[in-house]
């Protein structure tokens, strides 16, 4: 938290992207979170990703619930649409917005409290339905705003700042997302932007439900010895399965890497993601194997990160519902009302 606004002055060599904006143009208000909060790094990663993707800020809708994480949409994309909803209800508001206007890029930002406790039902159904969105959980394992009680994602056996050992099983958001049909599932760490930024970019390009679990240490209440969500613990136990190097448009791929190291995943719309494999026995296109892989490594105390699963042939809710390509909010009476003669015909057929 800081009292002065970040100066508008920027580095003299700051460049503009193809839509005419600098990275700084994607920033929001000055953050009021605690100094050193992982969430601020995630905000910075979102800013970077949107700038690199040449996204027009007004084509993004950022939605959130309640909590430290859900405050963050105020701190990035200051020129985008925003909706700060009720606790745990971001997914349903997002679903409604997405149905009304399928042309925006939907960015849902939530936390472990907002998504894994009060909003767990909403989370589950949003994943099931395959809403075209990026769902980021800023996961720190504690309720920071209420002074550090364990949240539902806190690992069993981890220690709170006051010395209490957590006896509850953690809720596995990655496992749930995989199980419930999310078509892009990733985990990352707020302290590793080199990994996180491409993952956010990939998620924004993905047509379907994209879920990213970002371990984001709470410096105020969960960054001590005994915590499994501290900067130090995550750095020591981070097992990255792959690096998402870049995302190509619909261009032909020329492989720069030795065979076997690189996987090109062609998506439904023809775009291609290039993954640099770091783990030999992980196949990011196999959902069942991925579930096993994540569970096995979790049992060893490792935090598996990277793009864990991607369904190249993903489709979204609009395709399930067979909606028209025009956003529903742009349909007028002309398209929606067939007229009295059509009504008469229908009525006649029912007599």
């Amino acid at each position, binding site marked *: 938290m*800081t009292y*002065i606004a970040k100066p508008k002055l920027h580095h003299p060599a700051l460049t503009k992207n193809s839509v005419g904006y600098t990275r700084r143009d994607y920033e929001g208000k000055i953050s009021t979170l605690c100094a050193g909060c992982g969430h601020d790094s995630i905000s910075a990663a979102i800013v970077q990703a949107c700038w690199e993707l040449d996204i027009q800020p007004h084509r993004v809708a950022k939605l959130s619930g309640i909590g430290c994480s859900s405050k963050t949409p105020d701190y990035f994309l200051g020129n985008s649409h925003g909706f700060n909803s009720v606790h745990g209800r971001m997914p349903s508001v997002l679903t409604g917005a997405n149905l009304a206007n399928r042309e925006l890029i939907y960015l849902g930002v939530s936390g472990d409290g907002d998504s894994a406790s009060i909003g767990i039902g909403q989370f589950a159904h949003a994943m099931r339905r395959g809403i075209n969105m990026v769902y980021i959980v800023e996961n720190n394992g504690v309720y920071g705003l209420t002074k550090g009680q364990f949240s539902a994602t806190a690992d069993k056996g981890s220690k709170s700042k006051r010395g209490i050992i957590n006896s509850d099983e953690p809720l596995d958001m990655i496992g749930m997302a995989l199980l419930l049909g999310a078509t892009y599932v990733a985990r990352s760490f707020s302290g590793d932007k080199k990994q996180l930024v491409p993952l956010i970019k990939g998620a924004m390009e993905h047509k379907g439900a994209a879920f990213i679990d970002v371990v984001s240490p709470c410096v105020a209440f969960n*960054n001590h010895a005994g915590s499994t969500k501290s900067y130090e613990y995550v750095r020591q136990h981070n097992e990255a399965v792959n690096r998402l190097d870049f995302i190509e448009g619909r261009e032909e791929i020329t492989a720069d890497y030795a065979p076997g190291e690189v996987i090109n995943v062609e998506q439904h719309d023809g775009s291609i993601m290039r993954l640099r494999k770091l783990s030999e026995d992980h196949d990011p296109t196999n959902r069942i194997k991925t579930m096993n892989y994540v569970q096995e490594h979790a049992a060893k105390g490792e935090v598996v990160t990277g793009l864990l699963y991607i369904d190249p042939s993903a489709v979204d809710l609009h395709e399930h519902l067979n909606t028209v390509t025009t956003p529903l909010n742009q349909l007028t009476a002309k398209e929606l009302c067939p007229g009295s003669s059509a009504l008469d015909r229908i009525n006649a057929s029912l007599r």
Partner: protein
Amino acid sequence: MKPTDISRPDYFHKVVDCQYACPAHTPVPEYIRMIAAGKYDDAYMVNWKSNVFPGILGRTCDRPCEPACRRGRVEEGNVELRKPTEHGEPHAEPVAICRLKRVAADNKAKDGVAKRMPKAPAKKNGKKIACIGAGPASLTVARDLAPLGYQITVFEADPKAGGFMRTQVPRFRLPEEVIDEEVGYILNIGNIDYKGGHRIESMKALMKEGYDAIFVGTGAPRGRDLEIPGRKEAAANIHIGIDWLNSVSFEHINKIGKKVIVLGGGNTAMDCCRSSKRLGGEDVKVIVRSGYEEMKASPWEKEDAVEEGIPILNFLVPKEFKHENGKLIGMTFEKVKAEYDAKGRRNLVPTGEPDHFYPCDDVLVAIGQENAFPWIERDIGLEWDKWGMPKVDTVTMQSNVPTIFFGGDAAFGPKNIIWAVAHGHDAAVSIDLFCNGEDLKVRPDPMVNLVSQKMGIHEWSYDNDISEQLRNRVPWKDKKLTLKDIKVEVELGFDPKSGFAEAQRCLNCDVQTVFSEKLCIECDACVDICPMDCITFTPNADEAELRTQLSAPSLHAKTQDLYISPELKMTGRIMAKDEDVCLHCGLCAERCPTGAWDMQKYLIEMTHAGPACHKKTPQKKAA
């Protein structure tokens, strides 16, 4: 790269670009903050201690600090802040450091400052020092040594002290009362015997008078002449620039012809043309051999001349003074162009155009100054170089005759006031060491202090909210008045309000970002918040490689250092901060959860002559 050793006094000194560039190393941000706080007396005294003539320099300094100022570099890439104004397209500009000095001088309480001036001790130390010439260099020596108990005698050919500042700088730039006041502060210290109107004709004779040391601060008193056809015949209307300015200053001359040509592209030429304009010159023009850009005059002095309607014609080499019946009627010039050879050296090559003729009534020749020491006998043992300059040590200011010291323009040729002051300080240190029988080569360490500015979680003892204002313009008095009377000062100076606004543009580069790697948890908060993308965490490498790994491109690798931390305990990476365009806004420190970043004020003050320089009382090592 090796971790940066911030205990070395010169590391952070370089970060304070203005202070580093100032020959006298005036603590610029320190006094600018005082001006912003309305503490004009304090600001004046900080200046006075370092540069001796704040009021004079605040009007006339060559300001090497301003081209160095970080603000100029920062504004360079921030074009969107610079909306066109009535004065045209604004450009990136440094803080108006020089004119802020004047704000301190103009607004101080006169007796408040006078009360704080040092006084000579009642008990003298028995050493006698002669200062020849009463310009800025000699007066600085006198000021530094008189409070230590030395008996100083200042000899000056003119009746009043001040030297070049009094005799050549025109009154419309520097009013006489400012000179009187600041020269007075020195002469009133006591122990200084001022002998005005007393020209030293013989060094030999002076050396016999029993002085323990002699300081020569006689300036560069001879203006260079231009020996081309017609010079002798038209002599009545051809004047040497500095002599003419001198005569104008003493009111021996109070008018000039209607058409005036000023030859030369230095600051003296600018003073000549603007003075001519005030003494009846209606059609005054400056004609230079070089291109406009390469002229020696400071850019602002050129702009001021142009502002007063004086055209500057370039690439014209003087060929002949034209005269009729013994009276000057004009000059012819050969038009040239600049051509650069393979080594990048410039040659002025005739264009082949017919010669240009400009009619005129008077010509002022301001094409350079030379030193002249006709009064120093060549058989006193002093060594001279092939250009007729005494051989002087650049650090100690001592000549090969141990008792004779040089400073100011007399030492290494024409420079400016602030260099003369710096020479004066160095010579005073040397004379003091010399009179105490100590080694002149062992120079005193500067006083260095580094103190945290943290007052609370988000409170600092300096204003870290960065002003986005562009440089304020110093208001001018109405041209109708200033062009009529040579004694009316052109610049009005900033008033307290605009002075405050300008002071707020200062980036407080002396408040340093100090990093403690042991406290860092590598959360990236500082990297994310830094508005200038100065901070990078990366694996260590050599400097060239590291500079390619930075968050933002390194723009001034030759002059701006990287601040490198030791390896961090968690990832083994290092923190690399490019000092180049840091705003010193302190956001890295505010966002740091562990206090690994702290904003610490770095104060470096040059040690002037006095007991601190002597080995008998050794200095504490800088922390």
